[in-house]
């Protein structure tokens, strides 16, 4: 697709107007998932397994059903049988079948006239379990004597003889590793581990579902992607896809964790049984125990480097657990681990492993931060041992347009070098450090995504513009869409209204995931606008009695394209709109596609921190994010993505982890113990927006949401190494771990 931005000056794009939904969101008026209610609505609650792995021998709900106010109980017996593949996985995850597979796995659900009655009723449901041996660690789950989560879950890729918990196996690479390592002056080998983190969205999952005996239903929920919700719910419940209409609420954070379903099919199943709408809202501990945290990883890395800093070869083995189901994003980890660099000889091995943990879900650049932690930590160590500057060394190896990526294809225009140069030039890089302070640098990449996209624009009778898109606004994307529509039509930003359409209104849209919303829905909005502009020009041409081709659109007006077209006063969008009822009817534009011109985004981060030698606690002193946005549509929200991604990465690096006890139960299922960064943990997060336009978007946009969480894990670890003189290879770098490392240094 032609890149318009090379030749075009922007009037609206790149400005920072107030977001269209700002007023609603600062007054408490915005309706989020749990804010929706229906007449006659019941409240649902879910009974969850206290065991990490147990056979379900019997479920007796007699006493619960006898409680006044209880209207329905569902178990797996209320769901259809015969599902296969991921449909079965989702069904099994939302309601356990023969076995409870992790602490928190749903085993039954109740609908009652109040939430308190529903919760009381859960205590009356009697479940008999036979507790089985469990495993929650990825390396232990691959060992010969590990308990088997489920036989037959492995796909064709797994070589014979491997443990049944290994469900996918992958190998990729190129070149001659042996020769590559032989050409190196220094070769390092090291193992690394990262623990599972949770997306930590502040809004727990919430939904209201209504499903009739006729198989027709409606669902209101907080989700990143309501067409995904529709597909999953209808598959799990045995319904026809389009008979369920899903309307998204405002969404209180997702970061990938709201691209799937946990409670929605259960609410619908309860509704079908009770013949009333049913609302379910998760508690925080349910969110942590039984939604979809990310994978934990165990990795072995080997890299070789010449004395002057050229990477000669690299190999990595990545073992990742994704809970009790296939799906750990190890394919992405293997793909992106070495993707920052131009390496001729490279090899990756990946294992997708099942454990007795909740089914992992996407979390911001799923799979990328773990690999980045391992590889960028080792790169830092190579630089340190060879006495090389970490930014210069990255510049020496950085990929650019035309470089053959470690995952295969040649890179289109990308901005890694630009981010490294901007980081190097930033004053932070040369700010003197005090005692116990350290500086870390790391780069990261996310390839971004296009995905199925459908959008409409419609012209109002007063010449204002209504945009309908299918990607929920999770961080200000209504503002981006309105800016792009304003730019395309040449109308003021305030004359555009952006609606998030429900599943009954547009064709299929993938979720707001893969950093795709501003890219894909934005592209679709611009292309739909172009179609509408063509119609506006046609109306003007008809009025003037000239050919439509002789009319151009400029700054909100139809004009004759030149002296040969004739002399006519320009017609504004409002003038054309005012007459459209009598000149051919409503004017709208549509666009549908799966755009594949998404351009990847590179970022480079610098962190300065101080480690308290008495406690091992790390305090972030300064933090810089440099990232390629292609073209920043609304720069304030681009900066916000950079800052938010960096801080989530800081949390993952320093504090956040899933802690399982010997009994396989999650030990920290509340925010007090699962500690996400708070305001007093942090300084301001400085940002530099690099703009290397993406030729695949009319205005040059690259997605910016995910890259930002990739560099912080290694950047923080590299800074701690700089501060304490010890290389830490296991995240998170909690005060006790860092203190032990300092003491061991002795």
């Amino acid at each position, binding site marked *: 697709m032609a890149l318009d931005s090379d030749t075009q000056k922007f009037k609206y794009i790149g400005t920072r107007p107030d977001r269209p939904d700002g007023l609603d969101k600062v*007054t*408490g008026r915005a309706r989020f998932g749990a804010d929706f209610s229906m007449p006659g609505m019941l409240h649902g609650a879910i009974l969850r397994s206290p065991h990490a792995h147990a056979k379900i021998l019997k479920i007796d709900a007699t006493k619960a059903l006898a409680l006044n106010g209880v209207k329905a109980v569902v178990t797996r017996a209320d769901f259809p049988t015969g599902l296969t593949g991921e449909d079965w996985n989702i069904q099994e995850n939302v309601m356990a079948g023969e076995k409870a597979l992790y602490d928190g796995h749903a085993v039954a659900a109740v609908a009652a006239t109040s939430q308190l009655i529903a919760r009381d009723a859960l205590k009356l449901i009697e479940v008999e379990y036979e507790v089985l041996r469990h495993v929650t660690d990825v390396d232990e789950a691959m060992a010969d004597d590990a308990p088997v989560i489920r036989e037959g879950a492995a796909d064709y890729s797994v070589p014979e003889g491997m443990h049944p918990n290994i469900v996918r196996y992958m190998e990729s690479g190129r070149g001659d590793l042996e020769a590559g390592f032989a050409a190196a002056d220094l070769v390092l080998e090291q193992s690394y581990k990262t623990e599972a983190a949770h997306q930590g969205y502040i809004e727990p999952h919430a939904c209201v579902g209504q499903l009739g005996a006729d198989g027709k239903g409606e669902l209101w929920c907080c989700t990143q992607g309501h067409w995904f919700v529709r597909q999953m719910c209808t598959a799990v419940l045995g319904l026809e896809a389009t008979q369920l209409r899903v309307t998204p609420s405002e969404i209180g954070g997702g970061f990938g964790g709201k691209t799937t379903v946990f409670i929605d099919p259960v609410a619908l199943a309860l509704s079908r049984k009770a013949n009333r709408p049913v609302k379910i809202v998760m508690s925080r501990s349910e969110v942590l125990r039984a939604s979809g945290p990310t994978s934990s990883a165990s990795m072995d890395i080997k890299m070789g480097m010449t004395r002057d800093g050229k990477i000669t070869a690299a190999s990595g083995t990545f073992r990742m657990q994704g809970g009790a189901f296939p799906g750990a994003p190890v394919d992405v980890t293997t793909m992106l681990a070495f993707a920052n660099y131009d390496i001729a000889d490279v090899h990756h091995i990946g294992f997708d492993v099942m454990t007795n943990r909740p089914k992992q879900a996407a979390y911001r650049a799923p799979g990328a931060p773990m690999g980045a932690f391992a590889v960028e930590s080792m790169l830092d160590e190579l630089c340190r041992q060879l006495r090389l500057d970490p930014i210069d060394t990255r510049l020496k190896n950085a990929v650019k347009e035309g470089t053959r990526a470690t995952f295969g294809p040649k890179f289109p225009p990308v901005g890694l070098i630009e981010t490294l140069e901007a980081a190097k030039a930033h004053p932070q890089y040369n700010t003197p450090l005090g005692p116990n302070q350290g500086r870390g640098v790391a780069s990261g990449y996310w390839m971004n995504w296009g995905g199925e996209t459908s959008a409409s624009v419609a012209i109002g009778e007063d010449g204002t513009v209504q945009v309908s898109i299918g990607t929920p606004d999770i961080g200000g994307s209504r503002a981006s869409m309105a800016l792009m529509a304003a730019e395309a039509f040449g109308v003021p930003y305030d004359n555009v209204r952006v609606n998030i359409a429900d599943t009954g209104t547009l064709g299929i849209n993938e979720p707001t995931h893969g950093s795709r919303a501003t890219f894909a829905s934005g592209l679709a909005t611009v292309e739909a606008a172009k179609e509408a502009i063509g119609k506006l020009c046609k109306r003007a041409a008809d009025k003037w009695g000239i050919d439509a081709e002789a009319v151009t659109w400029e700054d909100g007006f139809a004009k004759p394209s030149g002296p040969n077209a004739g002399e006519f006063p320009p017609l504004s969008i409002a003038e054309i709109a005012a007459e459209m009822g009598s000149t051919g009817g409503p004017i709208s534009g549509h666009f549908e596609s799966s755009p594949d011109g998404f351009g990847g985004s590179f970022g480079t981060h610098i962190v300065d921190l101080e480690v308290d030698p008495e406690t091992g606690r790390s305090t972030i002193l300064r933090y810089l994010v440099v990232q390629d946005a292609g073209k920043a549509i609304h720069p304030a929200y681009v900066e916000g993505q950079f800052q938010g991604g960096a*801080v989530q990465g800081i949390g993952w690096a320093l504090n956040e982890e899933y802690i399982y006890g010997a009994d396989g139960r999650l030990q920290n299922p509340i*925010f007090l113990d699962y500690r996400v960064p708070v*305001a007093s943990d942090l300084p301001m997060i400085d940002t530099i927006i690099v703009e290397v336009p993406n030729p695949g978007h009319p205005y040059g946009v690259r997605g910016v949401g995910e890259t930002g969480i990739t560099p912080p894990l290694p950047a923080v670890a590299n800074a701690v190494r700089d501060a304490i003189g010890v290389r830490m290879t296991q995240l998170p770098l909690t005060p006790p771990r860092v203190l032990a490392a300092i003491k061991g240094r002795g």
Partner: protein
Amino acid sequence: MSKIHVTTTVNGDEVEYLCDPRETLLDCLRDRVGLTGAKEGCGTGDCGACSVTLDGRLVCSCLVLGAEAEGKEVTTIEGMATGDTLHPLQRKFIEHAALQCGICTPGILVAAKALLEKNPDPTETEMRYWLAGNLCRCTGYDKIIRAVMDAAQEMREAS
């Protein structure tokens, strides 16, 4: 279990509700009074999304029982603007893009307002510690702190 009759004042209006003794003030505000601006993010007083003031004191409404509001004055996010005039904090949050998803925003605004009423000229560090009880997962707090600082300055200049 019989319900408790509560008479209280919410954003200046007298309201009455019947609540179960186990229901929190947050539940009562949302489900009995119909004000859903305060959010439940955790239910354990760790996230601050349910922040309201009770007789002028900043509290997590998930840690207060609905029955405890009897005879007291509750102020929520819905009471922050004066008619159609936004509080400077609300305006600055929009101007600075200090929210992404917006779920934590009501609680943070209520908490920040309580801070500025106590201390009209807080340092950045004081702001960060005061707001440490309000989790935001989207923004990394940078733009939130800038918005509060800017609002504080505007309010000082106006007074």
